[in-house]
């Protein structure tokens, strides 16, 4: 944390959220990695190491939410941290938690990904929160993210309800000066009151559900007076912008840059659900024309329309603009330009603030080289998918791969030879495959390979794998074990040999789990054994039932970071290399596709860029002319 002024430090939004968790007095924090939320737990692991706070990477978001609730039930303040998709994972638990209520303050910090930039979909946590009957607030700045999180613990504990705090990618990853508050001294000891069990059972829930609604009404009342709701502008502006979260900054920038401060007022809503209806009514009285600016779904917009409907007799007509009117695009991320465009359309005479990124990019597009998104240099997934591809081609029944959302999801593209044909969410590959694998009587002749990463294996694959085995599905299940949660920033997981703070840890191996589930499992190094792996996959494709393979080799980029990789570098013997002639046609540089394999067009020969070679040896294994060899330390 860098100090800016005497009282401020420069914090990333996620760091501010982490600080808010500490200032809120949490004793327990659990999460599962996932952009854009990953830095919150990572920050706490670093900064709270000496504080009496338990911080963990849980096996998945469901477990994180449940484990944190355990701490809350024991009277401690606790937080569960996740990206939006994680709320889907733990929705079953949260829905019942909202009914039983909590003891110690319980906050779910959730980071949405408008766009999406790094997610498989752009879900909106506000809709989920409402469905789960959990109050949700939305921060606009890192300062507010911290302060709002701290307050969320207070609301949660006072009203005995879980509370969610929403961030979005550009807030989580943006930086601003934040004034720090005090981290309270620990004053509680954990104890569960067995006299008052927390039971969400049919008979009990019928009684508890109305109580939960009472709690929501109490929270709504708290929200009426919240400092996180604000209004800036004239008393009766020509246009009123109603906005929440980061969108408020976009609205402010657009209004200020277009010089519309006198004509346009901005009502900022931090406490988005249950919406403080009195406050909203006051806002609606200010103007006949209303533009709602928010991220992802028209959540506030629907609320505004509903509130206007409630007050129609008093207010009369209102023109309400937003996503439904087409003034804000229906999906995707927004920016200050989006708001400026909407203002121009409604008020007239507006202009774009500056060229958008897309426009700027299109101008220089001609000069940019074409580059496919690619696995990293020496990435073991490249070898794994080459082996799988080879096996499926040998099998000849038009087989395919069902995958999910780790780095290996890139195998839907050229870098993984377009092998993955189905991608949805964590663990969906093996689940889908357990369906494909029983369709033989319905005419399905294609074999299916399911892939999952090692972290995903522990997070989300076990029920699918058990289901496949139990239902006699024909599936080859391949665990791509690179020993870290690589895609989200190299976090540890149960199969890693290091713990959350880098300390040594006894890894739980995927093959141990698979075998214990009665699934025959073999382990290979996907690079050194690339040919044996293709033989093994082919062999398993011919057998009935579930067969597992664990392809284990440490993530090459993680190795680079830890400086633990091989010092060997590949070298091409250009005397042997046959280049573009029949017999090769630039196989290593054109087909295998590792960034380290380069083509010397002048000589018509392949060579290795030593700066891009980590000595994995895949090209050595695959060159059918034995023209490539490994040299220790390079030349």
């Amino acid at each position, binding site marked *: 944390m860098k100090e800016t002024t005497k009282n401020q430090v420069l914090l990333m939004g996620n760091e501010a959220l982490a600080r808010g968790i500490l200032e809120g007095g949490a004793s327990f924090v659990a999460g599962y990695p996932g952009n854009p939320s990953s830095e919150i737990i990572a920050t706490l692991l670093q900064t709270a190491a000496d504080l009496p706070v338990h911080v963990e990477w849980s096996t998945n978001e469901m477990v994180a939410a449940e484990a944190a609730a355990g701490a809350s039930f024991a009277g401690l303040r606790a937080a569960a941290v996740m990206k939006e998709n994680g709320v889907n994972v733990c929705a079953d638990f949260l829905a019942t938690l909202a009914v039983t209520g909590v003891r110690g303050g319980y906050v779910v910090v959730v980071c949405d990904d408008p766009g999406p930039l790094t997610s498989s979909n752009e879900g909106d946590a506000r809709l989920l929160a409402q469905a789960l009957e959990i109050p949700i607030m939305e921060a606009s700045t890192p300062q507010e993210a911290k302060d709002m999180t701290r307050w969320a613990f207070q609301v949660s504990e006072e009203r005995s309800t879980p509370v969610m705090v929403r961030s979005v990618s550009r807030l989580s990853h943006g930086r601003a000066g934040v004034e720090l508050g005090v981290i309270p001294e620990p004053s509680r000891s954990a104890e569960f009151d067995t006299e008052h069990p927390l039971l969400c059972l049919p008979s009990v829930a019928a009684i508890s559900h109305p109580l939960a609604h009472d709690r929501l009404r109490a929270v709504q009342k708290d929200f009426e007076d919240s400092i996180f709701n604000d209004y800036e502008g004239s008393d009766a502006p020509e246009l009123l912008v109603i906005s929440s979260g980061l969108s408020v900054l976009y609205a402010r920038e657009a209004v200020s840059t277009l010089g519309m401060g006198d004509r346009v007022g901005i009502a900022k809503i931090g406490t988005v659900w249950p919406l403080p209806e009195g406050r909203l009514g006051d806002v609606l009285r200010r103007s006949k024309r209303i533009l709602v600016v928010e991220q992802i779904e028209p959540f506030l917009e629907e609320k505004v329309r509903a509130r206007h409907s409630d007050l129609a007799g008093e207010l009369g007509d209102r023109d309400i603009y937003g996503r439904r009117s087409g003034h804000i695009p229906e999906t995707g991320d927004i920016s200050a330009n989006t708001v400026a465009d909407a203002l121009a359309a409604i008020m007239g005479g507006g202009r774009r603030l500056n060229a958008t990124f897309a426009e700027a990019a299109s101008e220089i597009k001609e000069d940019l080289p074409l580059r496919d998104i690619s696995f990293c240099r020496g990435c073991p997934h490249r070898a794994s998918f080459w082996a799988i591809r080879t096996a499926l*081609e*040998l099998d000849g029944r038009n087989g395919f791969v069902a995958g999910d959302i780790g780095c290996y999801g890139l195998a839907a593209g050229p870098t993984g030879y377009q092998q993955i044909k189905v991608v949805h969410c964590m663990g969906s590959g093996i689940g889908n495959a357990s369906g494909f694998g029983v369709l033989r009587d319905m005419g399905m002749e294609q074999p299916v390979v399911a892939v999952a990463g090692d972290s995903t294996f522990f997070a989300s694959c076990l029920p699918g794998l058990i289901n496949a085995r139990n239902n006699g599905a024909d599936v080859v299940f391949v665990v791509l074990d690179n020993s870290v949660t690589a895609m989200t920033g190299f976090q540890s997981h149960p199969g890693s040999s290091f713990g959350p703070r880098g300390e040594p840890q006894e890894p739980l191996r995927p093959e141990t789990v698979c075998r214990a589930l009665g699934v025959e499992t073999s382990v290979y190094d996907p690079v050194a054994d690339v040919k044996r792996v293709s*033989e093994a996959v082919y062999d398993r494709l011919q057998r009935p039932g579930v067969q597992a393979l664990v392809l284990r080799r440490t993530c090459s980029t993680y190795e680079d970071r830890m400086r633990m990789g091989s010092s060997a570098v590949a070298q091409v013997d250009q005397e042997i290399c046959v280049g573009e002639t*029949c017999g090769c046609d630039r196989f290593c540089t054109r087909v295998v596709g590792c960034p380290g394999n380069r083509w010397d067009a002048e000589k018509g020969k392949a060579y290795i860029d030593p700066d891009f070679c980590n000595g994995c040896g895949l090209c050595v294994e695959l060159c*059918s002319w034995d023209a490539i060899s490994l040299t220790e330390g390079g030349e």
Partner: protein
Amino acid sequence: MERGLGRLKKEVLSHWLCTACGACAGLCPYIVTLEDRVAGVGECRESDGDCFRFCPRTGPVEGEGDSGLHGDAGYGGPVGSYESTGIARSGRRSDGFQYGGAVTALMIRALRDGVIDAAVLTTMGKTGPKTITATTEEEIRACAGSKYAVAPTVSEVNRVRRGFGGRLGVVALPCQVTALRKISEAEGQEASGTIALIVGLFCTWALTQRGWGALLGEEPGPDDLGRVDIPPPPADVMEVDLRGERLSLPLREVKEHIRPACRVCLDMTAENADISVGTVEGREGWSTLVIRTKVGRELVERAGSQGDLEREELDQERWRHLQDASLGKKERAIASAEVEGDMEPLPFLLAVSRVKEQIQR
């Protein structure tokens, strides 16, 4: 017109037409073999590739005249062209040999006389037939016996040709023989790794490796499989000596595992070989020889004069029977090709269909 891997995949590899001879493999990284499977992996841009040229199933190549090859590559009479016929058995009998042991005797003679420096042969591997390169008499003897399933033998020839300057003798099935003849004619006798001798085996059909394993209960290991025989009708069984026991497999079940590619094969007697060798019905221990080239004739004569082979004439009745059987296979292949060609007009199927007119003429 493109004659590369893309077209090979489109016309052969992606279909049931591929015989898994291995002619296209062992030449580059794009074509891989495993057990009795051959597949193209990755896109090669070469528009005139050896893979397409050497394949026995690419059909007649546009712009090129009659290849002069027979069997699957053209019609040259019921058993193709030949110089002479006969029957023979090994002069040094060994019980491990299928039928007459003539093939083993010929290969050993060829090695001894320096006609070849190495022999590419098929043995039983851990999971099925496997092709090896033998350079000693003991290694050649260890490969005796029929296999009834295929291995991509020609890929081993391609692999060995690359790093080996000597002359190769190959024992091969008819589809493989056609590929080997294509290669030897394309590469000439000057190339390194010359194919100097092709001994062909009579073949009615071959089984898939996995199917063969399934029939036997488990895949036979190297020393598990003894003699395999299909006695003449009405027996309707395949007899197999497996680990000292004689199994009698119903022929109907066996035939379910015939490689689909065999259904449209025109070649029973390995018409493009130097010498073709097969069974002699009713003469236990003897092999039929069809000697087709000067190389074949000289080898058989030397083997006879050196006492490796005991030789007799092939009687007229057996000779007629062999021609009828060979023609019968062609007619069955043509009938299958006509049906399949209607559904998928692949060049090879159309070429097989056209052989009908040549037979009628």
